[in-house]
């Protein structure tokens, strides 16, 4: 079920009403309702994949106990590996099986061995598998690290794994943050309700007005590269930077806001990332739940920065390489991850002080955009072609044809609104605020106008969110 569909609105209304008006007295019943609702939400796409979530839930629930109860560290470790291997295998099979087979075949063929590819399977990628496998993994790892005790409440645990607001595209929650919330009573407050709705409204603005508008131009250029020149690729890449931000940050805000309506607090996932003055700062602002996941479960276990410098740089690079692969089974994502790793290594080598100022913000934006080319391109060859065209053949700027022209203008207008809001939040937050204004009338009018703008400028085609594919 898509957030940007009327199905979801009806679903949310029903679940919200049952949650607070029918089963509100018993926390177990509330959790059961969330579990059932989450399975309906997920099954709306493809009910067959519910078995995967159920299996992953059961496995980590049982393994969590084994890890906790084992006295012997090596046995604890063994059970941890069971969880890791199970979840990674699940991810590996559904997401990467064909990618690795194809890559092996291509490798052999490139050495002159003619190999026929007969092993690839027709595997459909289950929506959100990368998110919930990471979430369940964090549960087992945190128990192993003695940060968390396993819960006996299976319903609460299953609801934590499948919690519908963040099930398919995050934020990837840690068991240490979210699971206790399932075990404690939630209370309804006007403050939480109102804050949740505000986040949802701004999330929809980011998705329907910013991301989906930009997507029209981006797709027109990136899906038809042979007919475009360097200037168009620059424009499309910059627009893609806002498309993916609006799409993903929009989803996260809707997820966080929806959770608020049910009395849950999810972690912040984006903090105005394009105001970062360095790539390392960018990664503290972009997809925070994933970058901290990789920091805690990959980078630090590898030794982090408490090791020799060369090893430290290697740890950074390998973490970003894996992060790239996590995003998709395509070499474009691997290169994107590697590029970010290289940026960080260069920053460590070249700059000692924390960077600040507009020049550094623009430079960071430029570097991030360069990496986005690989992220958005359909293949490595296409990305290289685009880069070549940017540097050698600026040509003319495609402004769209027919309705596309209007789409480009709408995208520009919506990004201008977004930037104004973010500049205000980043630098002048204390001056004036609509969302926190002491006058209720101003707050209400501000959000009424925002909804108006969504309905007036938004794209209403029930488009998918980009991160569903990851």
């Amino acid at each position, binding site marked *: 079920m898509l957030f940007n569909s*009327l199905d979801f609105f009806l679903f949310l209304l029903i679940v919200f009403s049952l949650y*607070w008006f029918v089963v*509100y007295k018993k926390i177990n019943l509330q959790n059961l309702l969330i579990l059932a609702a989450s399975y309906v939400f997920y099954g709306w796409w493809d009910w067959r994949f519910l078995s995967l979530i159920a299996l992953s839930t059961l496995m980590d629930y049982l393994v969590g106990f084994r890890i906790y109860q084992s006295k012997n560290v090596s046995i604890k470790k063994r059970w941890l590996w069971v969880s890791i291997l199970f979840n990674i295998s699940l991810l590996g099979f559904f997401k990467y099986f064909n990618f690795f087979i194809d890559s092996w075949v291509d490798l052999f063929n490139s050495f002159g061995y003619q190999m026929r590819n007969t092993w690839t399977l027709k595997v459909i990628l289950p929506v959100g598998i990368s998110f919930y496998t990471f979430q369940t993994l964090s549960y087992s790892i945190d128990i192993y690290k003695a940060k968390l005790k396993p819960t006996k409440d299976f319903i609460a645990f299953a609801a934590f794994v499948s919690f519908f607001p963040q099930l398919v595209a995050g934020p990837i929650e840690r068991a240490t943050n979210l699971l206790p919330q399932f075990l404690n009573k939630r*209370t*309804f*407050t*006007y403050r939480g*309700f*109102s804050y949740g709705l505000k986040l949802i409204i701004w999330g929809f603005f980011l998705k329907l007005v910013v991301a989906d508008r930009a997507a029209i131009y981006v797709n027109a250029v990136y899906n*038809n590269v042979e*007919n475009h020149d360097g200037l168009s690729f620059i424009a499309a890449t910059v627009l893609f930077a806002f498309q993916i931000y609006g799409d993903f940050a929009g989803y996260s805000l809707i997820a966080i806001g929806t959770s608020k309506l049910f009395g849950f607090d999810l972690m912040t996932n984006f903090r105005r990332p394009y105001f970062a003055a360095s790539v390392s700062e960018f990664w503290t602002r972009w997809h925070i739940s994933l970058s901290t996941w990789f920091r805690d479960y990959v980078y630090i276990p590898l030794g982090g920065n408490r090791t020799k410098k060369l090893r430290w740089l290697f740890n950074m690079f390998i973490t970003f390489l894996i992060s790239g692969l996590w995003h998709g089974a395509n070499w474009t994502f691997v290169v994107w991850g590697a590029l970010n790793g290289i940026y960080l290594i260069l920053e460590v080598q070249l700059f000692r002080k924390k960077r600040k100022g507009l020049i550094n913000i623009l430079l960071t934006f430029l570097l991030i955009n360069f990496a986005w080319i690989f992220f958005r391109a359909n293949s490595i060859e296409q990305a290289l072609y685009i880069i070549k065209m940017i540097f050698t053949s600026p040509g003319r700027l495609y402004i769209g044809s*027919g*309705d596309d*022209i*209007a789409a480009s*203008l*709408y995208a520009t*207008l919506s990004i201008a609104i977004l930037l104004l809001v973010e500049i205000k939040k980043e630098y002048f937050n204390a001056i004036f605020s609509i969302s926190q204004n002491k006058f*209720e*009338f101003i707050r*209400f*009018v501000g*959000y*009424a*106008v925002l*909804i*108006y703008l969504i*309905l*007036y*400028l*938004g*794209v*209403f*085609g029930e488009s998918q969110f980009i991160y569903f594919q990851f």
Partner: protein
Amino acid sequence: MIKKEFKLSLIKLAKFVVIFLIADLVLGTISKQIFFNQKTGKYARSTYAIKDTDSKILIFGSSHAHRHYVPKVFEKELGKTCYNVGAEGQQLLYHTAMLKMILKRTKPDLIILNIDENFLYKSKVAYDRLSDLHPYYSDYDEELGPILGLKSKLIDFKMFFKSYQTNSTVIHAIKYYLSPQIDYNGYRPLSGQVKSVVDESEEILIKEYVEEIDENFVMGLKNFISTAKNKGISLLFVTSPTFSEVDHSNNISYNKIKEIAGKENIPFVNFFNATQFKYKHELFHDTSHLNNDGAQLFCKYLADEIKNRNLVESKKSEY
């Protein structure tokens, strides 16, 4: 305590909804004013066709209608006023909706529908582009409801909001306010010539359909015919000239349209592969569209055909 919070939330939510509805009404009314005050551009043309035209010959169809039918030629040859209601990229459901709205107010003598061979094939964009009709919903809900309902079952709910009715129209209004788009009774001529040797690989053809019949489009065509017939208006189906030789004998959509036209006794004038036009690069803007010279010539031939078939009572031109 919780009850108090619920009560507070409900009261605040109700207040917010009232403020939003007022904002929607006020800003929506302004948006509608902007929309209906456009002087040029596609919305200005459709608004004129719906609200003002009393022309005796009306032309419907996609870009082939919009770019090929020169009202002045029909007016001169047939002595009847003519308006081109053709709209780029639009398909049968849109044309049927436009016809229903126009016929609510006026009764022309002849309606020409320019047939695209793929009109009946499944096409998502054909549904998406029906959003061009949203601004007219408040005044024509009876005519538009069943057609827009094919796209979304909750159309009444969505159209309750004025902001949604005018979604995605403001840039268009600003654009054509700053740079007016000239048309001649709905016709916009194309200039330039198709290359003498056309490299088809250079042509970017975006296929906007799947080769399966969409029953809604079949119903749309039948509805178009019955709407005109019920008002006693003559109908004519025409296919436009093509630059290259085309073979639509196995095109299921095209054959179905011909079959329906035959059953309903609708005259059908076929200019596909017409020798007067085929491979005459000086008459074409691109391989699919005539330039102004081609359009003038095509309309002259078509006017003669209309006269020969006595489809309208032609009188000496006063134009």
